[in-house]
């Protein structure tokens, strides 16, 4: 048995608190960015409207030349990564390719810098917890939450390297704060040993993949919500109605959100398939049967089927877009239920894992 180091455990809790505090400031900065930058974009839009006549001519010209067989005005580079970007609505949303560039957003830079600082502190919290307990830091609800929040923020930052998803900041950081607060307030557990049922290398494999997939599902959940809002807003804009969701200017159009969240969901689905399979293998090792419809197994299966439905929806006529987004949201709701209700209320073999 590893030796429990309580001092490290206390440091870990201090780091978690500091991380939550840093995230809170980052959250405010992200929110400020949404408000400020959309105002700025609105000003840009208004200016652009003045010269819109010219633009329309240009667009028309592009279409004509297309008809003649010329490559579209942007050339291959303009189409890079997103052949569908031709479908974007006329302005009012951010660039569909979610690439960096264009306007410089000071609040967003501050927010990202704070998030990086926060994730470093948070990482220190996770690592000290692991060393304090002498094992992987995901053996109970407190640890799932703190480590899960860390992975969610880390994944978000990693995606940020390649794509400008800073508009998701308030969501992701907000969720991370909720998770950290819930961990400390409702599920606090001091560092300790694992019960024999959890002493298995499958804990390392199965749970780490589950946490990683959940982090990806968290991103797509946020994107699907924004997709719904944006497609509602785009309809409004197209019908020349008032834009009552001004802050969504910073967010790309609904179709681009859908496409990117599909790609992330596909990765997460593969991860969840592994979670399910490795869970089954572990269950066989621990309890002698690989599947027994224990509540945790039921919900893992339900989540898997819902996201399989999501992938099907993307290939089914009339089910793309808004409906697919709803499926992605329902899937995430199931992830939350699987983590909260199933661990605490429903009675099953997995119940020891928590409290």
């Amino acid at each position, binding site marked *: *048995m590893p030796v429990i180091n*309580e001092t490290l455990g206390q440091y870990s809790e201090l780091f978690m608190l500091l991380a939550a505090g840093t995230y809170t400031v980052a959250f405010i900065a992200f929110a400020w960015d949404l408000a400020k930058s959309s105002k700025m974009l609105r000003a840009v839009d208004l200016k652009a409207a003045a010269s819109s006549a010219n633009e329309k001519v240009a667009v028309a010209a592009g279409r004509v*030349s297309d008809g*003649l*067989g*010329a*490559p579209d005005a942007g*050339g*291959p580079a303009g*189409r*890079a*990564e*997103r*052949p*569908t970007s031709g*479908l974007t609505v006329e302005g009012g949303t951010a660039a569909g390719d979610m690439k960096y560039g264009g306007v410089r957003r000071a609040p967003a830079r501050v927010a990202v810098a704070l998030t990086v600082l926060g994730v470093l502190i948070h990482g220190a919290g996770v690592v000290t917890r692991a060393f304090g307990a002498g094992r992987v830091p995901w053996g109970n609800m407190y640890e799932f939450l703190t480590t899960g929040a860390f992975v969610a923020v880390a994944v978000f930052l990693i995606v940020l390297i390649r794509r400008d998803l800073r508009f998701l900041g308030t969501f992701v950081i907000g969720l991370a704060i909720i998770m950290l607060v819930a961990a400390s307030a409702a599920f606090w557990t*001091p*560092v*300790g*040993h*694992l*019960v*024999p049922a959890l*002493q*298995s290398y*499958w804990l390392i494999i199965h749970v780490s993949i589950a946490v990683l997939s959940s982090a990806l599902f968290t991103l797509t959940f946020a994107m699907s919500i924004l997709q719904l809002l944006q497609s509602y807003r785009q309809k409004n804009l197209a019908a020349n109605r008032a834009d009552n969701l001004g802050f969504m200017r910073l967010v790309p159009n609904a179709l681009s959100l859908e496409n990117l969240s*599909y*790609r992330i969901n*596909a990765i997460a689905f*593969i991860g969840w*398939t592994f979670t399910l*399979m490795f869970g*089954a*293998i*572990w269950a*066989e*090792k*621990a*309890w*002698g*049967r*690989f*599947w*027994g*419809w224990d*509540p945790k197994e*039921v919900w893992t299966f339900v989540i898997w*089927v*819902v996201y399989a*439905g999501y992938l*099907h*929806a*993307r290939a*089914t*006529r*009339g*089910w*793309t877009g808004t409906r697919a987004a709803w499926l992605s949201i329902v899937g995430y709701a*199931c992830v939350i239920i699987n983590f909260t209700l199933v661990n605490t209320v429903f*009675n099953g073999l997995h119940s020891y894992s928590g409290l």
Partner: protein
Amino acid sequence: MSESVKAKKKSPAAESTSAEGTTGEGKLKRAKSEAALPALGFKGMLRWAWTQLTSMRTALFLLLLLAVGAVPGSLFPQRPANPSVVTQYIKDNPSYGQLLDALQLYDVYSSAWFSAIYILLFISLIGCVTPRAIAHYKAMKSQPPRTPKRLSRLPEYGTLALPADAGIPASKAINDAAGLLKKRGYRVDVRDVDGALPSLGAERGFLKEVGNLVFHTSLIGVLVSVAIGGLYGYSGQRILVEGETFVNTLVGYDQFTPGTNFQSSSLQPYSMQLDKFEATFDRESPGKAGQPIDYTAEVTTKENPDAPGKKEVLKVNDPVSLGGTSLYLTGNGYAPMVTVRDGDGNVAFQGPVTAKVQGDNYYSSVVIKVPDAKPEQLGFVGFFLPTAFVTETGTSFSASPELFNPQLSLNSFYGDLGLDKGVPQNVFELDIKDLKPLNARDLAAGGITLTPGATVDLPEGKGSITFDGVKKYIGVDIHHNPGQLYALIFGFLAVAGLVMSLYINRRRVWVRTGTHADGRTMVEYGLLARGEDHRLAGEAAALREIFAREWNVPETPDTGTTKAVSSSTSKDQ
């Protein structure tokens, strides 16, 4: 991509009209055929039902239904896992307990409705996969589709111009392109090599669809494997006190659940003796003291009665494999050793009694039945506490899971235990209805409290009971599931298929070459993806690069010339 987007955009209208069309048609046919040819109408209806069942919408609907249908199994207690909890639940909820039972909500996963959902889903799956497999097989054998007239309409398009002095005529250029594409894994068909406008069609990514088919077929494989396990597998439980031996025959089990096709001759008579069991508890962590941190059972196994014994260690998460089965450590507890003498002074019972864990720190219940006692049979009911602790109000509890202050507290009875009637009895329960009490807290004689080594005489000269010491026992689950290896294999196949299906891109490329009036060799190419493909533009760029390298064309960022050239090429057609 743009092709599929267009299709999708059109779809709502197209879908509704076509749906109306088919239903309308179906109705018409039926109405007609009912008059004249009922058989045809029936066939038509079947075909209609089949088309509906194997449509993507139905698959989606059934998938979502499956998800919804699985949920109640986590809300209500389930019989296969916990039959006694179900019985209790029905008793506790008289208003709707029976109703839920009628709806099979305590047996969700074997219920008629849940089975119906997944059987329909899998029929739909087979109906979906088979024609797709055939179609795909044909597609793999056929040549890439003909070169479209206007490559520039494709989602990715580009042109290259080879200088007249480079010495690469149109026919050589197309062959070069064919070679390059073949190297990149495309299947290539060159057309019109010696014509004015040679072209080629190329296609790759057939494994995407193969992956999809492998994935879906493997799901059927998993289902079949699970069914095989249910048919030919078996499982059982046995409680083993230190020193006892389990022999793998039907009588060796405390509880046995055979699969539908189980034959008792398939049990291999191996044995496993529990030599020693050790539980380690946390003694240091605040708030967690008493939590178990290790269970280790030392056992001696024999493949068959004549084989030499082999020492093995059985732990949680680490089963022992024997004779095609696996043995799992699933529980443990204490077994107080007692000796009961009857009214005649003879030893009527001696040995360990497995105490059933009821509460924290191994607070366990004990039942001792002594049918051999004479002249009256004896029975004892009570509790075993590894570390007994009595509060001021007189309630006793166990303060630690370890044997710091073991204690047996019993009530005793005499009379007919009812064991001779042949009605099977639960060893953990004593039916005291027909028994007369001897010892109880509210009787003059009081209850029996024993510490190790102590003996208490029963009142009225009915005998005595001695607490000799404490042994430990383990609960062992024995499982044989011939389907699980196949389920595992199909599971991994499914993932492999899934990854192939999601990450291989099915793409078509066409290249056309020609000679410009000024002597340059013009090359144009276009790409088309089937299905989601966000990397099509990347592929187009890569192709451009290898073409340019092959023909030594300097990359000109000037799209103007490209445009001019390309429009001239397409006008040439």
